[in-house]
């Protein structure tokens, strides 16, 4: 029943998009939850989730992406690509100023990119194919690539490439620059106040370059460390917005039923968080492909979706989420089939050797999921030992390859070249680090496919390559894919038009308004 209610609400809210048809009203204050407290607010230096959620209002990128991941103008008003797909020309919006009144120009773009190459690991990887960047005038930036790079137009959102004010950072020690905790951007909201441990306050930018926006006067990001206390804060009307992941999953159905409450799963299309179990391919029973396949058959992923995630999300079919480019469902399937799992284990000669499993220390939901998977695997005759750690301890074990099975979820960033290949190519087998190819899967064919896919043209060629890669990976089961996760955003229904792009709340409250 709760599931049905929730889905109903989701649908209702999806249909409640007539908010778009209504004339936005100006004014008002929105209280939102931020968890955990961001370590800093300078997006170019700190890239964790909470920082992006707050600073996505203050900083901007050259582009935004709609839910279909198509580029939209932000600081760049238009762009063009040369025939050979190696030159990208961006025309910057005119009349844009930083919050301190200085004009935003192409020089800021050039400086930002140089800085990001040193401070932003993902940006450095994304920019690896760039040969040179030039600014022929104050409002034009030209990127010349070494070779065509398919996902290039997908790397310009605010979290991947935030624009930094050159006049405040050039020649300073970036690490200790005072503006790191009182950021100056070009965004719709300006930083006003940060009371550590309590709240962060942003106020409307009256000189914002999109006339009439933003609609809200202020945003308070409230820092409430306990998940149950965050639920109560929403319940008692103290906060209006619970961004995805703010409350435990089992609280979502209850909160959804409150009066004037809207829930949506939208706004994660760019990240497309995909959860899986790292399987250590190097040693023990898991080195055998049949045992890994048995794990896929043994786990009841529909149960995890319906019960542990309250019906939110989708059972994953392979290494790509269905929301990113070049996804294909035409891959080998692993339905819940304990009998088949047992047969495969027998065939592989598995004799009950102990397998160590690390759940993810992200709270109650993940804890429960760990228990459910353990039960599933024990049911087909596997001996599972759960190892409890905190996040830092777990990361160290995974990075040192000292595990057999470990839970994780990672973002995919819209394109397999940005967020999928990194977990399967053999050049990413590096001890001591997490989130690369920690499972130790090595297949020269996959290495070649991902290398070719990133630079292939035209698009149809990329599609062909990535579909082939997906098929091979799903057959080999280097990791056990679980669910495409959906973190519902819960709001008071009076907060309209909050999520308009593929990065949802992370894109700021520029379009949001209050129906008072």
């Amino acid at each position: 029943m709760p599931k049905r209610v929730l889905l109903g609400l989701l649908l209702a809210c999806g249909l409640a998009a007539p908010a778009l048809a209504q004339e936005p009203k100006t004014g008002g204050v929105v209280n939102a939850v931020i968890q955990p407290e961001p370590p800093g607010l300078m997006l170019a230096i700190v890239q964790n989730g909470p920082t992006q959620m707050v600073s996505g209002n203050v900083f901007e990128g050259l582009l935004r992406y709609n839910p279909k991941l198509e580029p939209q103008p932000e600081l760049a008003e238009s762009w063009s690509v040369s025939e050979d797909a190696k030159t990208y020309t961006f025309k910057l919006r005119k009349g844009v100023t930083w919050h301190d009144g200085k004009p935003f120009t192409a020089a800021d773009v050039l400086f930002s990119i140089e800085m990001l190459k040193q401070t932003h690991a993902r940006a450095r990887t994304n920019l690896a194919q760039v040969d040179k960047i030039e600014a022929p005038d104050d409002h034009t930036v030209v990127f010349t690539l070494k070779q065509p790079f398919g996902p290039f137009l997908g790397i310009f959102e605010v979290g991947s490439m935030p624009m930094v004010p050159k006049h405040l950072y050039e020649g300073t020690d970036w690490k200790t620059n005072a503006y790191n905790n009182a950021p100056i951007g070009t965004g719709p909201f300006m930083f006003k106040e940060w009371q550590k441990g309590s709240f962060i306050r942003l106020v409307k930018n009256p000189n914002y370059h999109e006339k009439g926006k933003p609609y809200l006067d202020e945003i308070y990001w409230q820092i409430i460390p306990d998940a149950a206390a965050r639920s109560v804060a929403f319940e008692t009307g103290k906060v209006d917005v619970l961004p995805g992941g703010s409350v435990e999953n089992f609280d979502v159905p209850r909160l959804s039923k409150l009066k004037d409450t809207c829930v949506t799963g939208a706004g994660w299309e760019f990240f497309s968080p995909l959860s899986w179990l790292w399987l250590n391919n190097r040693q023990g029973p898991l080195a055998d492909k049949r045992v890994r396949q048995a794990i896929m058959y043994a786990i009841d992923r529909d149960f995890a979706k319906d019960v542990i995630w309250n019906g939110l999300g989708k059972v994953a079919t392979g290494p790509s989420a269905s929301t990113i480019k070049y996804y294909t469902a035409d891959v080998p399937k692993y339905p819940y089939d304990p009998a088949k799992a047992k047969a495969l284990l027998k065939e592989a000669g598995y004799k009950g050797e102990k397998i160590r499993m690390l759940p993810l220390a992200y709270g109650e939901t993940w804890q429960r999921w760990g228990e459910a998977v353990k039960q599933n695997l024990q049911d087909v005759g596997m001996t599972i030992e759960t190892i409890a750690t905190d996040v830092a301890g777990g990361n160290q074990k995974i990075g040192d390859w000292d595990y057999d099975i470990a839970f994780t979820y990672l973002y995919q960033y819209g394109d397999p070249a940005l967020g999928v290949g990194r977990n399967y190519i053999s050049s990413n087998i590096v001890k001591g680090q997490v989130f690369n190819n920690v499972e130790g899967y090595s297949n020269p064919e996959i290495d070649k496919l991902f290398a070719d896919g990133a630079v292939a043209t035209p698009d149809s060629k990329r599609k062909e390559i990535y579909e082939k890669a997906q098929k091979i990976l799903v057959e080999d089961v280097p990791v056990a894919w679980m669910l495409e996760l959906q973190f519902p955003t819960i709001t008071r229904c009076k907060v309209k038009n909050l999520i308009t792009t593929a990065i949802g709340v992370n894109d700021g409250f520029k379009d949001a308004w209050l129906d008072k």
Partner: protein
Amino acid sequence: MLSFVAQRVLKGVIVLLAIVVLNFFLIRLAPGDPAVVMAGEAGASDQVFVKQLREKFGLDKPLPEQLFIYVKGVVTLDLGFSFRQQAPVAKLIGERLPATLLLTLTAFAISLALGILFGTFAARFAGTFLDTAITVFALIFYAMPLFWVALMGILLFSVTMDWLPSFGYETVGANLTGLAHAVDVAKHLIMPAMTLGLFFMATYTRMTRASMLEVKRLDFVKTARAKGLSDAVIQRRHVLRNALLPVVTLAGVHSGTLIGGAVITETVFAWPGIGRLMYDALLQRDYNLLLGVFVICSAMVLVFNLITDLVYRLVDPRIEFAA
């Protein structure tokens, strides 16, 4: 007395330095690497990035050298730089310390005042219904975990009755000043301070009761009674005062536990104190910040213990300061 205090302070400094060295190694024994945690949060973890972070925070240096740098810093009152929050540790603690002091001292005052009051009543009316009621009440609060009391308090006083705010230090966005601000903070303080205070109150109640019943049986109480002193005077001046020594000892010991309890209370009530700062620093393996909080907490415990020793003398003039 002065030489007593001076000697205790000197000993305190030595203990503090020993704590710093011990903590330094203990923290590093825990699995987990701050650079990997931060790289992970950034959604990318390539070799260059992790190496950069390690160099930036001096984690690439040999351990003895890191210890030397840290201890040298502490001696010159420099608690170092927080890796994660990119700010000096002393500044981060300074921002949070007043809130923790307000919470713990209020809780401490509530627990002592109520504990001694209830304990005295229970002892005075030992064996009656009042005694049983107080003892059961104390037992309940002693037995219930802090976080449970906190959550039930929120459910009752915030959600159901809507009397008290459920989280925070003040009403965000109200911009109150003067008396109105003080009242606002007090309203936010009631639940966390009571939650933390009631647990310790229970201990003091039981301790005061037991201790008073013991003293009551002693000969000098009979003498006082024979002198014709009123019951109230006997209870207050002769019984209670003598019975307080173990309570004071316990209160001194509790100063450390109180800060530990503040970690949970501050987390549930979103109280912006150092308890939460410590918890976050631990999860992030923010070594310098964690060590900084430990140093401050240890210093607080040492100061509390010194105060306890001084209070002994006030409560019982027979005790002398041995320098």
